[in-house]
């Protein structure tokens, strides 16, 4: 059964220039015990999506349309009080910056205990102490240090305390927003391993939001690639990273060096994402896609279902034989606008047929 179903979700921010369409028609579902990674660059809407799910959108943000169903109930219809009851107990969040998420004037124990007692009234001191000790051991912290204040912890310890807190009530859904971005590689590796282990134990589902495709490749079952507020591609991790069916995924995966493949050329995606106050017609990636045709600029792509994944590229069906060889070549991505226009006329096969 699906723990979380997001359907045609639109989240807008009110600005002076008009609404910014930060999340635009995004749909996906998350099964029990499954990990879904949401990747994309800054401004693609991934954090907005997470905030909408947990219900902490800033004042200017609102859900314009669509549903977020948790265990069948629509979160967007709930009152604040109803949502508050779900927090920690059912849905919890591991934020990027642990220093800003922990209260500096309370000890770590007080903060975890407060969350436990708020949701499980009648929990005794002895029992909550046991939970804190157990959680600290799970994340690899010394339980004797639970009475320390956040500033007495190092960055890695704070992040682990944050994780202990997020998992203390064994929620069925954990949202992790860049959970390890601020950490060194060794600490990142340890924390990811521990989170996965605990998760298996309490059988929770997790939404991992990150810009780092490697983190997703190592921790998730499925991945959703977002670009400019929309889904570019979605499917099982193996399929998406081995055989992507969207040029943006190819570019994103190869935009940064891979320690195991030193000879691989880097792909440099030219330009910047579009403004979302007035998003372009057609495919949102068209302007930066070296293989875009006139059709890409004019017509919005529909979902193509291939190999168990869905790709929102007009030419997803032709990716294997025509686009991927070109997209894998770093030279393709270096093309200037002029050269691109020329290629378009030279390849009528890629036109609107």
């Amino acid at each position, binding site marked *: 059964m699906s723990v979380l179903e997001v359907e045609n979700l639109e989240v807008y921010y009110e600005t002076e220039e008009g609404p910014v369409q930060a999340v635009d028609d995004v749909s996906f579902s998350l099964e029990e015990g499954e990990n879904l990674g949401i990747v994309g660059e800054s401004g693609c809407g991934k954090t907005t999506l997470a905030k909408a799910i947990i219900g902490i959108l800033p004042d200017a943000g609102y859900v314009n349309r669509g549903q977020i169903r948790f265990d069948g109930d629509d979160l967007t219809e709930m009152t604040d009080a109803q949502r508050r009851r779900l927090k920690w107990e059912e849905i919890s969040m591991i934020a990027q910056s642990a220093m800003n998420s922990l209260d500096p004037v309370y000890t770590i124990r007080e903060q975890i205990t407060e969350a436990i007692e708020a949701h499980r009234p009648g929990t005794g001191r002895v029992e909550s102490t046991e939970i804190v000790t157990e959680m600290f051991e799970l994340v690899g912290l010394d339980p004797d240090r639970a009475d320390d204040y956040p500033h007495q912890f190092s960055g890695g310890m704070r992040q682990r305390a944050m994780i202990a807190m997020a998992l203390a009530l064994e929620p069925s859904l954990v949202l992790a927003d860049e959970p390890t971005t601020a950490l*060194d*590689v*060794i600490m990142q590796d*340890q924390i990811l*391993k521990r989170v996965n282990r605990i998760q298996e134990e309490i059988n929770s589902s997790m939404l991992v939001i990150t810009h780092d495709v490697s983190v997703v490749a190592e921790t998730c079952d499925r991945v959703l690639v977002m670009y400019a507020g929309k889904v570019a591609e979605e499917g099982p*991790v193996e399929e998406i990273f081995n055989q992507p069916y969207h040029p943006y995924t190819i570019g*994103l995966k190869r935009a*940064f060096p891979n*320690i195991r493949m030193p000879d691989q050329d*880097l792909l440099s995606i030219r330009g910047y994402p579009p403004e979302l106050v007035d998003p372009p017609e057609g495919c949102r990636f068209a302007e930066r896609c070296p293989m875009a045709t006139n059709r890409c600029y004019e017509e919005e792509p529909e979902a193509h279902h291939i190999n168990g994944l869905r790709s929102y590229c007009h030419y997803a069906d032709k990716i294997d034989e025509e686009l991927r060889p070109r997209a894998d070549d770093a030279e393709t991505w270096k093309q200037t606008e002029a050269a691109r226009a020329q290629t378009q006329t030279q390849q009528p096969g890629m036109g609107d047929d």
Partner: protein
Amino acid sequence: MSFGRDDVLLRVENLEKHFEVDEGWIASLLQSVSGGEPDYVHAVDGVSFEVRRGETLGLAGESGCGKTTTGMSLVKLHEPTGGDISYNDKRLSEVDKAGMAEFRQNAQMIFQDPFESLNPRMTVYDTVAEPLRIHDIRNETARVQRALEFAELLPAEQYYDQYPHELSGGQRQRVAIARALVLDPDFIVADEPVSMLDVSLRAGVLALLERMTEEFGLSVVYISHDLSLLRHMCDRLAIMYMGKIVEKGPTDRVIENPQHPYTQALINAVPVPEPDIGRERVELQGEVGDVIDVPSGCRFKDRCPEYIGDVCDGAIPPLERKSDIEGEREHEREVACHLYESAEGHDPYAEVDGDGTAAEAGAGGDAERASADD
């Protein structure tokens, strides 16, 4: 391949940089009364390496390992506490004012955060022209234009009157690169040059840095915690831990066949975007130790999965060539670990023997050494 003295641009010898711990005026007052010694952070604690002409060297390690302090000392943004840096075989501690001016002209730095490293009140033109004015170099406009064009800020004139806040992160970092290049330097220290940039923009800036190294024949020292990036950009790597270099050598050798237990752990922890590639995952215990009250012997011993006893506690492992690591180009690799046999005749067990408290352990070490010799 061997490098003669002429190939060496910078030689760093036993560099040390310690920072006094600021405990507030009451503590320092009490200290001055009681005559106590202040505490020091041993940020960099005896680091030696050389930078050859036209090569790219990577300094890697976790936060707090001293890599940034080392980099800043290289361009004289820090005055070293001990040791020395030689530039073109001239010791920087001995050069006169003119010599130092020449050095400063040839040593440039690119910082991590282009949002903080550019003066928000200076236009792009002034930012790039400032070093020329300081060093009194003529032909300002032509040089600024050329530097901006090289950094792919085209057309250059369009950027002259813009302020940093009008530019994107990628463009700002390109301005910082243009500013570093405008003086035609010999070498550049680049501290995490792309870590603040969005993923899709990183490849473009990295390509620019690569082109810069090739076209100008520059030596570049890259400082990063990201081994994937360093593997892509660097000829040689030096891995740092708690203010010391633990392993140094050709990038391919260090990444593919790491020898120091810390290097092994560090490389194992790097995630890869290939779901099929399984990694051998060794879990390292604890966290980076205290660089104020530095432990005796090897600094990695408390977390080391290969800890072999008193020699690790008693003797500081020197960074040296080892005789029992086999493979191509191994003569270029140096490791600071007692697991391997010194190729330079250094005997750490003798050091432990000399210390009365560890005499017993020394005997054990002797036995082990004897069996290893067989």
